[in-house]
């Protein structure tokens, strides 16, 4: 059967059918017979001793099955919610790793810390009963500001009296100091990378179930990585052996990292279901999500760039406070260290780089990976300080970067990575063209005629994703491998079931992975089914995040396909009475090379399962192969973004009038899906840059605690985007040559926007404004600048 060339084709998504018809299977859509409902009573204090929790009245309330507190967790001897990555500090000591009980024991450490859970027949009854719980707490001063946390005299955890989880460094301090000593110009920038809430539109949900007949536990959960949850929860929290624990994540409505981590609620419902012998369902509401989903970003940094007189970068220094929040979430220590420090070369041949990171405990929600995870923080640092340097030295922002681009690959950076390939001039050339960079002056004048200040801001990013080589991350403190798994099960009549350890939560794997298999096996896509999300069905995979699914998951699929084809050749050779070495596999046919004698894929598949005419002495029947793929390196997508803004000087309002993106993702399987990923990333990056802020007050109250106060990007806040995906430089070390694209938009865009606004306001003497660039902040900066300028 003829098929189109499916690689690089914008094939429409098959999963759309169920989503568009309202037939998606999200976790909250599922219900188990006899299920009970859990409502979590959460701390309203940021920091307090938990003296007593009186649940007597609540336990007697209508419909209540049982009320649980930290006492029950302690008596049951359950483990802490674990951290999956151990960082070693600059003295060679392991990080401080305090416990994280499923329900608070002795102390509450952030607004949202769970105190008690009511399990009842209905959600309303559980919620009503929770109001009858009497909590006796004594407030303690809240640790909120990272910069004073070391010396404020209050500690979040007894193990860390200075609230420092670890003090880490990377790079050559001596070489960097020498570079600064010899510099013609030093640019300094102190800035904030603002705390964000991921806010996938589907709130988290978890259903625990227990079958007492066979002792089998089941957790249905909104997770990006069900096997990881099964391992962490089974081994470290609940002591349930993996063969007795199934974790099933059905359709997941967005994740952006927030659904990677193993959360207390997952362990709670799994454990509680076995305690009460009935399913327990917990669904987060949105206000609850704000105080219980892991937050993102939250760095305070002082950065310095040393340049020679011509603008060549000699050295970069960064000193960062990174917020861990009240407890260590699953990947948290890795984000400001190995995913941030190692990206501080950027696209540039800076010879000396040094980075220090102090990770701090505070009385806030735990912070962990959020789309980009460390790379947006690194890119923001570089792209802002470079523009500041350009402003100070009177150089064009594109020219200063071109003076410093890396142009020889592979390239070993001073911060531990080896970039395999890239072409940074190509993406910069491309974005300048599509943005009509040369025509900016005319547009600026036209905006001025309407009373608007127009600015154009560049950001050139390179990122490291497609995580990751297992032994490398192991050496860096990861407590897991980062390979991926795939089983290709060829069915007797020639259709193919693909079990993948990746787990789509919007990325369209059911379509793109089918494209990959269709291209590799030469069979139509409608003969291929992609199965994901259920640990009962799929070999151990690490899940979807870090832009890894095509690069790592797709490579596992290719490896498994290779094994299928190799076995198929043996079968075909037998059927065709030819030597195995004479068999080639092309377009779904096993052919005797140089002849037109062939067997179709389906014929060979049938022979494998009905092995009558079959080389049974040499090979087994069946045609099913599994591969685990461990990547050789990270992949390195890169690109250039140009943002154009109009600033209203009277109100400080920033309008994004255009956003241009040129990305190199290596090979591309489905350009439609790739562009969609970039659009979504740009929206989140623009949201960070000018709208979103998970703001805390000095008492540790989250003042942006719902959609009324946390400014999610809306359709009216954003322009349509101008996105091109270059032919690019294919990844040199995976079979598909793909680099991944899921996070790039969120990584590259925030500095482009801030650079554009600063560019618009440069004549006002403004060289920095911290994100988010709300009208108030922009207006205030303009006012302060005009006061300063008047005084001069």
């Amino acid at each position, binding site marked *: 059967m003829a098929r189109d060339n499916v690689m690089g084709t*914008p094939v*429409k*998504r098959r*999963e*759309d*059918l*169920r*989503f*568009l*018809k*309202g*037939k*998606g299977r*999200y976790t*909250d*859509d599922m219900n188990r017979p006899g299920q009970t409902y859990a409502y979590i009573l959460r701390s309203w204090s940021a920091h307090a001793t938990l003296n007593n929790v009186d649940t007597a009245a609540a336990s007697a309330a209508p419909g209540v099955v049982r009320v649980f507190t930290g006492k029950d967790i302690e008596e049951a001897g359950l483990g802490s919610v674990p951290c999956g990555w151990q960082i070693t500090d600059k003295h060679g000591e392991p990080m401080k790793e305090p416990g994280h009980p499923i329900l608070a024991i002795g102390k509450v450490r952030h607004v949202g810390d769970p105190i008690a859970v009511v399990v009842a027949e209905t959600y*309303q009854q559980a919620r009503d009963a929770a109001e009858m719980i009497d909590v006796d707490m004594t407030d303690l001063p809240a640790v909120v500001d990272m910069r004073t946390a070391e010396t404020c005299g209050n500690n979040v955890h007894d193990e860390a009296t200075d609230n420092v989880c670890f003090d880490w460094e990377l790079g050559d301090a001596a070489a960097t100091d020498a570079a600064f000593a010899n510099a013609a110009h030093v640019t300094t920038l102190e800035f904030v990378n603002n705390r964000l809430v991921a*806010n*996938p*539109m*589907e*709130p988290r949900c978890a259903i625990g179930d227990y079958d007492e007949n066979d002792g089998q536990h089941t957790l249905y959960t909104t997770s990006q990585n069900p096997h990881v949850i099964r391992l962490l929860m089974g081994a470290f929290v609940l002591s349930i052996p993996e063969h007795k624990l199934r974790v099933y994540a059905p*359709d*997941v*409505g*967005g994740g*952006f990292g927030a659904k990677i981590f193993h959360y207390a609620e997952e362990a709670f419902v799994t454990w509680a279901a076995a305690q009460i012998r009935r399913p327990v369902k917990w669904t987060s*509401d*949105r*206000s609850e999500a704000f105080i219980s989903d892991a937050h993102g970003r939250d760095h305070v940094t002082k950065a310095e760039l040393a340049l020679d007189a011509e603008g060549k970068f000699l050295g970069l220094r960064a000193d960062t406070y990174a917020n861990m929040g009240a407890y260590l979430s699953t990947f948290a220590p890795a984000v400001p260290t190995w995913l941030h420090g190692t990206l501080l070369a950027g696209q540039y041949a800076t010879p000396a780089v040094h980075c220090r990171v102090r990770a701090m405990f505070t009385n806030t929600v735990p912070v962990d990976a959020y789309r980009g995870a460390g790379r947006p923080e690194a890119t923001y640092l570089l792209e802002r300080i470079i523009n500041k340097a350009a402003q100070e030295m009177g150089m064009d922002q594109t020219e200063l970067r071109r003076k410093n681009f890396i142009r020889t690959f592979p390239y070993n950076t001073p911060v531990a990575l080896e970039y395999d390939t890239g072409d940074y001039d190509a993406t910069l050339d491309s974005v300048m063209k599509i943005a009509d960079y040369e025509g900016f002056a005319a547009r600026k004048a036209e905006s001025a005629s309407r009373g608007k200040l127009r600015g154009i801001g560049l950001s050139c990013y390179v990122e490291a994703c497609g995580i990751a080589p297992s032994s490398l991350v192991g050496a860096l403190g990861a407590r897991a491998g980062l390979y991926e798994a795939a089983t290709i099960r060829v069915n007797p009549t020639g259709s193919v079931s693909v079990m993948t350890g990746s787990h789509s*939560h*919007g*990325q*369209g794997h059911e379509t793109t992975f089918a494209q990959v298999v269709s291209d590799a096996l030469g069979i139509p896509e409608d003969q291929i089914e992609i199965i994901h999300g259920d640990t009962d069905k799929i070999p151990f995979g690490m899940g979807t995040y870090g832009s890894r699914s095509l690069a790592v998951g797709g490579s596992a699929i290719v490896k498994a396909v290779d094994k299928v084809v190799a076995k198929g050749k043996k079968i075909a050779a037998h059927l065709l009475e030819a030597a195995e070495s004479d068999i080639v596999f092309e377009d779904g046919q096993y052919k005797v090379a140089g002849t037109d004698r062939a067997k179709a894929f389906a014929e060979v598949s049938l022979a494998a399962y009905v092995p009558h005419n079959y080389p049974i002495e040499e090979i087994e029947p069946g045609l099913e192969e599994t591969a685990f793929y461990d990547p050789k390196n990270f992949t390195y997508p890169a690109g250039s973004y140009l943002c154009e803004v109009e600033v209203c000087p009277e109100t400080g309002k920033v309008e994004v009038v255009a956003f241009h993106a040129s990305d190199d993702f290596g090979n591309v399987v489905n350009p*439609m*899906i790739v*562009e*969609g990923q970039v*659009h*979504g*990333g*740009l*929206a*989140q990056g623009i949201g960070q840059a000018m709208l979103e802020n998970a703001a805390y007050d000095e008492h540790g109250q989250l003042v942006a605690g*719902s*959609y*009324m106060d946390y400014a*999610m*990007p*809306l*359709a*009216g806040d*954003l322009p*349509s*985007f101008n996105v091109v995906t270059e032919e690019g430089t294919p990844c040199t070390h995976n079979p598909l040559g793909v680099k991944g694209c899921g996070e790039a*938009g969120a990584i590259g865009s925030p500095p482009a926007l801030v650079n554009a606004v600063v560019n618009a306001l440069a004549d006002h003497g403004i060289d920095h404004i911290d994100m988010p660039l709300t009208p108030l902040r922009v207006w205030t900066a303009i006012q302060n600048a005009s006061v300063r300028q008047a005084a001069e």
Partner: protein
Amino acid sequence: MATISMTVNGKQMTGEAQGNTLLVEFLRTELKLTGTHVGCDTSQCGACVVHVNGESVKSCSVFASACDGGSVSTIEGMANDDGTLGVIQNAFQEEHGLQCGFCTPGMVMSIAELLKVNAQPTEGEIREWLKGNICRCTGYHNIVKAAQSAAATLSGAAQAAE
């Protein structure tokens, strides 16, 4: 507890609801129509948008009892009788206007009303109309394209019918 009846997607349906049962809970739990979603608790997000008596409404902000005897349209009723995608749904698939799918039912229902009141909306009018529907995945770019595509199809069909 009271018995509530309404016409949902053209079919008479009945269920139990308390005085404070929201329409979205009634649809999801009593009537087992889980296509309408709950994405927030402050009525900003729009994942719950349905039509009640012909107008788009956030079903998280209206009681089921207030719809007793009324007519409700949900995402489950937007496909054609033969099960193929309706015009707006088809435009979403063609333009890749959805990724995780969670906001999608609300988006489709919102756009369905937009195109009834404004058959040829500009990009600005579409973006303004969708301010009550939050999407975290798509950046809205392709949702706007889907709305424009659906508008063109519907007005083309309307012209053909004339």
